[in-house]
């Protein structure tokens, strides 16, 4: 990599890191999978890079108060392979396993991924389906935002200058009662989602009592398909409910997939994810 010259800091405490980024001019390096390729191409040329790699206490997965708290520097592989995530939030483990390849999953972090807000990243779909919250910290305080408020637009989040993603908080599913599934059509070159559908469902007396549908890749930002959720009254509604996933959506279009195709794939993958999720309910 031949980037432009930049200052590099590797703080060893969160306080030091927050101080270093407090004026908003530094770029934060987490796993580096988004920032480094941009710097290599010189599309990004930050004057100062603050590497979180040596900041202790940002990589953890723990259950607290009925929620799973995942530190920003937790790698995709740690999430994919965590017994705790598998038992308490299997949707997130399944989603993490779909990201990139093994090397990517060993380097990339959940905090880095959500902060970059790639419109085709895998996590946002799952986080929307998990009613996730993102805890942000600054040198002077902290706030917690629901994921849908955190994701603003393509590559754009609610992060303010000087603010850092500290952790992601997701709902815990009671063992077996919640069906889950992440289904993704991957771009042959990049591995990003052409579309990805993350779903959670619960049943009660033959009806669907709860559903969450998060969609990535289809629109400028990942979104919760509330239309699908409300149409999904019974397991027999899967096809018709999934059919509504692209309603009113301004679909992305690129070399890999036209807007029309993306919309249809969103319907197909949403239906597949819902069917598998329903089938997984114990």
């Amino acid at each position: 990599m031949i980037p432009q010259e930049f200052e590099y800091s590797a703080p060893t405490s969160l306080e030091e890191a927050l101080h270093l980024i407090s004026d908003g001019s530094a770029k934060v390096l987490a796993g580096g999978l988004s920032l480094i390729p941009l710097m290599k191409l010189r599309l990004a040329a930050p004057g100062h890079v603050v590497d979180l790699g040596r900041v202790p206490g940002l990589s953890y997965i723990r259950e607290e108060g009925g929620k799973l708290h995942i530190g920003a520097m937790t790698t995709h592989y740690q999430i994919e392979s965590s017994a705790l995530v598998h038992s308490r939030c299997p949707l997130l483990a399944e989603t993490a396993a779909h990201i990139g390849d093994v090397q990517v999953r060993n380097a990339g972090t959940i905090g880095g991924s959500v902060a970059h807000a790639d419109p085709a990243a895998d996590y946002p779909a799952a986080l929307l389906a998990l009613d996730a919250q993102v805890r942000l910290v600054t040198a002077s305080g902290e706030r917690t935002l629901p994921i849908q408020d955190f994701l603003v637009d393509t590559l754009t989040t609610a992060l303010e200058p000087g603010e850092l993603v500290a952790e992601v908080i997701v709902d815990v599913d009671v063992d077996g009662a919640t069906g889950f599934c992440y289904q993704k059509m991957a771009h042959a070159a990049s591995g990003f989602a052409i579309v990805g559908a993350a779903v959670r469902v619960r049943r009660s007396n033959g009806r669907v009592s709860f559903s969450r549908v998060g969609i990535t890749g289809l629109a400028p930002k990942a979104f919760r398909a509330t239309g699908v959720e409300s149409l999904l009254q019974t397991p027999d509604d899967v096809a018709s409910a999934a059919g509504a996933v692209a309603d009113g959506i301004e679909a992305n279009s690129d070399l890999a997939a036209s807007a029309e195709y993306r919309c249809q794939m969103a319907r197909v993958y949403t239906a597949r994810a819902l069917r598998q999720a329903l089938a997984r309910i114990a």
Partner: protein
Amino acid sequence: MKVAGEYLLAAAPDRAYDLLQDPEVLARCMPGCDHLARTGPDEYEMRMKMVISSIQGLFAGKVSIADQDRPAGFRLVVEGNGKVGFMRGDGLLTLVPQPGGTEVRYEGEVRVGGMIAGVGQRLLDTTAKMIIKRFFSKLAAQVDGASSSGAGA
């Protein structure tokens, strides 16, 4: 890349038309624009600093306006050149009176070259839409005390 959409401005067509051609307004509304100056009749030079996530691009370029048909519409050509590439947007703006304001319809083509064309394909479409959206929402904010709605399509 084709772009098309519409945006509702809470201003009458005459006023919307003037706003869309006011260099000071344009300078305020074009995302990242830090310089816009008239260089001739209906021609402006401009400088933009685009910042999208970690990506930064400095563009120098020009804006020209043609086929004026006040207040029904005009043709807008925006050209920019920078280290990360170059772009040329050529589009028609049509102003349609609506109850409570003016619907600005845009339809045109954006062509890009250089680095952004070579490595940016996956995000080009969404980024272009976002920039257009930002432009119109800033423009809407210029419309005194009025609210705006709508989105590109």
